């Protein structure tokens, strides 16, 4: 661009006419600035000329833009290419750590850098300098400026230009390795993977040089593996580096895996990587390859114990959770219990006005008392303040209250004597966890139901908790009752069984006796009949009959008495069984009765 006015100016001078210069505006135009100055053109002509200049400038700008847009291969930054040949560290720019690219030597210190590197370095911390770029040498901090191009040795340039680099399109598949000075030409002219404009009609889209001969490839296709929609010319790139279903080669274990799995493979499943021992959490520090890790796990104590440890840990955690729950329950129960005790020993008087005075009269409240005042609203009367209260009527009230522990004690004696002289009736049963202050404080001597600001902040909650604890007590009593009932019924059942046994035994005895008596009477009757069958013996047989009848009657009466005795014994036994309280007394009584029955028989 900058050269065009100079080269064109002689020709322009030969073509002074305005129309001619307009005709060839296609090649880079810019009419010469000399013409308007030399000729005496009118103002109108000058305006036309300016317009013409303006148009030309716009057109050239458009052409430049288009050329730039169609240049699909931007200039290569030689600092970003991969070098194939090894190079000496002395050929390395200290800023970019690459072999020098367009090396420049500083004037003062002769340190050498890439031109772009030193420009970037100086641009950031110095403003525009009319004397050209200058600054401190990055290596030795000497103030310096860029040396001329001739100062850089041609030998150095040749050495760095001879280094062999990979084509920048090597990621796309180009295998070319060329000298560094030729790499731009390679990309611009030869590289099959560089982009060129599509040869198809009415298509200006880019395509790779090697595919350009296949016609226009700008139509949609979908990948066979991952079903992604894309244009045909991009398919190869997609398969090479983008498709998640492509096969890639694992470098450590020499196997092929899907690209989508490569991340997981290289971290976990690859047999060549080392994995920690399963007992790592419990102290084993060994790491080994996957194959050997299993062998190690068989011999490692930690690995063997790891599941047990894990189970133990789980159980410990469980226990901890359960214990926390239990302790919470315990706290609730304790508070309920405390509330119950408060109810059993109700406060004697409401001391809300007195407590207000207590704050002023008592200089030092123990923290426990502070809590009692704060957390429990009116259940804990503050007797200390009552005593300190000098009102004689209040004192008299205290004197007449039924549970007043120390009606005669004076303030001074109480403060000197920590133990109550006349404790309340229930005070002796208590475990006495109280401090000196709380001993003095509450007449019944009960601590607040909850310590450290428990869940019962209001009297309603208190009542509810009391209700709960009462209900618990009720259920406990009812279980005890039912247990007792069961025991008693078992007892009576046992006794009944024994009695029934004895009764049946006695019945059998009686039946045997009856049989004997029957046999005796029948035998005697037969004898009498045999005697009456002979004449002259009827009177005697009648006499004997009378005697026998008397004997039989005696036997029958004896049996009947035995039966009554038996029934009596049974009744006694029943009484003994039914009387739950004196069951023990009933048993010997019944035994005595049955002995009686037996002896009677």
């Amino acid at each position, binding site marked *: 661009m900058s050269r065009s006015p100079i080269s064109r100016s002689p020709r322009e001078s030969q073509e002074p006419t305005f129309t001619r210069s307009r005709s060839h505006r296609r090649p880079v135009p810019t009419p010469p600035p000399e013409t308007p100055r030399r000729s005496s053109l009118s103002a109108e002509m000058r305006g036309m000329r300016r317009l013409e200049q303006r148009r030309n400038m716009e057109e050239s700008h458009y052409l430049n833009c288009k050329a730039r847009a169609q240049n699909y291969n931007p200039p290569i930054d030689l600092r*970003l290419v991969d070098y194939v040949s090894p190079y000496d560290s002395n050929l390395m720019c200290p*800023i970019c750590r690459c072999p020098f690219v367009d090396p420049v030597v500083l004037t003062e210190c002769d340190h050498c850098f890439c031109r772009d590197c030193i420009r970037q370095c100086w641009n950031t911390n110095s403003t525009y300098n009319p004397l050209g770029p200058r600054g401190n040498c990055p*290596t030795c*901090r000497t103030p310096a400026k860029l040396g001329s191009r001739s100062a850089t040795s041609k030998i150095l340039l040749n050495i760095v230009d001879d280094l062999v680099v990979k084509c920048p399109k090597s990621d796309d598949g180009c295998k070319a390795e060329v000298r560094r000075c030729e790499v731009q030409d390679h990309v611009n002219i030869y590289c099959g993977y560089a982009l060129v404009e599509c040869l198809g009609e009415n298509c200006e889209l880019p395509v790779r040089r090697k595919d350009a001969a296949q016609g226009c490839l700008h139509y949609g296709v979908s990948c066979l593996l991952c079903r992604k929609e894309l244009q045909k010319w991009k398919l190869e790139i997609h398969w090479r580096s983008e498709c998640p279903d492509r096969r890639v080669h694992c470098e450590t274990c020499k196997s092929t895996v899907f690209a989508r799995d490569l991340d997981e493979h290289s971290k976990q499943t690859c047999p060549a990587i080392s994995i920690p021992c399963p007992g790592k959490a419990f102290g084993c520090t060994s790491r080994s390859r996957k194959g050997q890790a299993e062998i190690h796990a068989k011999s490692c104590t930690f690995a063997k114990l790891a599941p047990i440890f894990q189970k133990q840990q789980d159980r410990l955690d469980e226990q901890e959770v359960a214990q926390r729950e239990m302790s919470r329950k315990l706290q609730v129960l304790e508070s309920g219990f405390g509330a119950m005790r408060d109810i059993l020993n109700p406060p004697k008087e409401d001391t809300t006005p007195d407590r207000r005075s207590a704050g002023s009269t008592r200089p030092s409240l123990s923290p426990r008392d502070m809590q009692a005042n704060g957390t429990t609203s009116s259940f804990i009367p503050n007797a200390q303040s009552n005593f300190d209260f000098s009102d004689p009527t209040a004192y008299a009230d205290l004197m007449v209250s039924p549970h007043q522990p120390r009606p005669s004690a004076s303030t001074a004696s109480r403060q000197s004597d920590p133990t109550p002289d006349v404790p309340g009736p229930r005070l002796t049963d208590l475990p006495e966890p109280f401090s000196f202050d709380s001993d003095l404080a509450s007449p019944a001597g009960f601590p607040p139901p909850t310590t450290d600001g428990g869940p019962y902040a209001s009297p309603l909650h208190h009542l509810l908790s009391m209700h709960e604890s009462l209900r618990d007590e009720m259920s406990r009593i009812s279980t005890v009752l039912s247990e007792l009932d069961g025991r008693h019924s078992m007892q009576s059942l046992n006794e009944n069984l024994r009695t029934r046994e004895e009764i049946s035994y006695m019945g059998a005895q009686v039946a045997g006796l009856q049989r004997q008596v029957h046999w005796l009477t029948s035998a005697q009757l037969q004898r009498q009949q045999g005697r009456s069958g002979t004449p002259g013996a009827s009177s005697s047989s009648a006499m004997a009959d009378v005697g026998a009848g008397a004997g039989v009657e005696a036997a029958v009466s004896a049996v009947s008495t035995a039966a009554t005795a038996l029934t009596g014994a049974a009744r006694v036994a029943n009484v003994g069984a039914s009387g739950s309280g004196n069951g023990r007394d009933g048993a010997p009584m019944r035994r005595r009765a049955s002995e009686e029955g037996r002896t009677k028989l």
Partner: protein
Amino acid sequence: MAGMSSKRLQKELTKIQGTLPPGITLVSAPDLREWQMDIAILDNPIYPPSDHYRLRFQFSQSYPIEAPEVVFMAIPSNPERKIPLHPHIYSNGIICLDLLDSQGWSPVHNVESICISIQSMLAGNTKAEREFDTWLVWVVMAN
């Protein structure tokens, strides 16, 4: 610029993974944005050689032209890392060193040379104290 930064860091990383001066170890370099190094001071009784100090490097996109952000890290445990006592190291780990400042920085420096500089700064220290006042004053002024 970004390409140059990552290219250079990649080269530095390959070099660091090879050999390093005594007392300097690479802890982690998960990406080219943040690295962690451990340094130990070998010949100063203030800092026992068994104590290692963790340095965190954060690189911007324009790394070799601009200085990286280097601070000491405090790690409570496993492994424990403290912030060394030095008049120019604040309790939050910020290091007052001209090399890390935009004026003193030079693109010729690299991670290894920064580590060596900090190591020598600590090795030459004679006062085991902290001038925390300065940064407290900053904080107070900022608020």
